């Protein structure tokens, strides 16, 4: 297309109007999507969180009762220390070749990764802000470890109290 042709097109009023309209519609859609994502994100404080390795939940913590659950035998979770204000634990990879050190702040009801030996030097999980509401997630891709808010405990009818 020659330069003259482009200039001719630019001077065509009919085309400029539609040009503006299309850009406007795209801008509106982007704004709408931003508003939808922003307004519908759940910023309420989380009741707890789960630590997941790949598809398996390996640790669950409940802020309101200060209780946690983890599988006893697989050695993925090591409780390193706890007091009234904090709980420290280490999450090992399934083959025990790597770890993420996690610290729970019981007072502020938040959790963060404080150290990791992941192969990537960036250590994104360590620099991710503490998870304290239902819209956040902390992930460590090299270790396939994800800390996710416990948005709602599903009342699973397969759970039966015994005793």
């Amino acid at each position, binding site marked *: 297309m020659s330069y003259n042709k482009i200039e001719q097109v630019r001077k065509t009023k009919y085309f400029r109007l539609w040009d503006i309209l299309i850009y406007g519609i795209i801008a509106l859609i982007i704004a709408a999507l931003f508003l939808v994502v922003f307004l519908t994100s759940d910023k309420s404080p989380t009741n707890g969180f789960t630590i997941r390795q790949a598809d398996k939940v390996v640790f669950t913590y409940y802020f309101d009762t200060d209780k946690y659950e983890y599988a*006893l035998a697989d050695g993925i979770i090591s409780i390193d220390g706890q007091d009234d204000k904090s709980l420290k634990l280490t999450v090992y990879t399934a083959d025990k070749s790597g770890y993420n050190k996690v610290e729970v702040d019981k007072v502020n009801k938040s959790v963060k990764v404080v150290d990791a030996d992941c192969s990537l030097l960036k250590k994104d999980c360590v620099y991710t802000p503490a998870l304290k509401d239902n819209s956040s997630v902390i992930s460590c891709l090299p270790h396939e470890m994800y800390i996710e808010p416990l948005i709602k405990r599903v009342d699973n009818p397969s759970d039966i109290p015994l005793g």
Partner: protein
Amino acid sequence: MNKRLTTLCAFSLSAVLISGVLSSCNIGETQKSDSYFMPIASYSQYKSSGSTMAEGCGHVMGTDAVLRIADENNFATEERYNAFSNLWEEVKGVLLSVENSVSATIETSCIYKFNQAKAGSTVEIDETAYEILSLAKTVYEETDGYFNPAVYQSVRLFGFGTAYYKKPDTMPSYESVQAYKTLADGFADLTVSKSQDKYYATKPQTTVSVDGAVHSLMLDLGGIGKGWCADKINKLIDESGFKYGYLSLGSSTMAIKRHNSSDGNNYTLSVRDPRANGGYAKFAVKDSCLSTSGDYEQFYEVDGVRYCHIIDPTTGSPIQTGVASVTIVGGSAAQDDALTTALSAMGTVQAVEYINDRLSDRFVLMLVFEEGQGKIITNRPDQVTIINGAYSLGNTVAEGKIVLN
């Protein structure tokens, strides 16, 4: 007029409810059965409820009974729902017949009559009582007497044995504890026999005197009786063709079938924490009978000492072994019922020896306290998920055997 009629109806309903509650509050030594069953939903009610499970519930043998059954097609036809209805009728029949046979407090039961008989006398009992008593004798021998249904008077001495247990005004004297222990020891001499389709139980000759009154051996088969019911009902569920659901007797004795939609069709059972709200550990299970028992069901404290309804036959007093909860999964629910009591009385070391020697085919989960620290003991740690982080695993497993830390 309508308002007056409504008021009249309300008063009448209240009177019926109050009289019902009062009549159920019989805390005397003897009573008639206060069992009841709620009517199950009709097929149309079930369909309109949107529920996926049919449920029958009631109160029998002093505990709540719940049967929940799911059908592969959500009871798409009334015929399948009628099958559940028939099953529920059979279940009620089993529960009531066992209660009327082995209750220690219902005047017409043969165990009540046995308890009232003189020392050394032979009493005719029915087939159900014969079978349950025979099983109790077997478990008594297998556990070296740690399961002993003849500790009934010791249970009552410490204020337990009814739904309305209470701490005695004064704690039992050493003499009375020893006297009732002597009677319980006589369970080894109790005999059961069968002759021409009739069944008999013969009391030992032993008598003791407590506060001027002469006593002979008395039995309470209620605990093992619940498990016996669960075994029977488990078979009934199988025979009716249902695969999904469970039976719960007081949430402590269960026949678990399969969950109709969970991962692996397992149910997840959370075992009650004896020292805190909620559960202390959980595990997945299906197609199994099980029982759990602990020092949290009925207890009181005196001068910092916990007294519970489980009697140690070797002392005649409530257990002080530190074993707070025992759960056994697999095998017969009746045996599991008896064995949870026996393991509680044995204490940690002896219980572990028993588990290693005789219960390797079952999943056993215990919570024991040593110097205030809760330890979880189990022969299948890979099946256990801890709920209360205050407790830790107190053993390893080597070649299928529990090795205490």
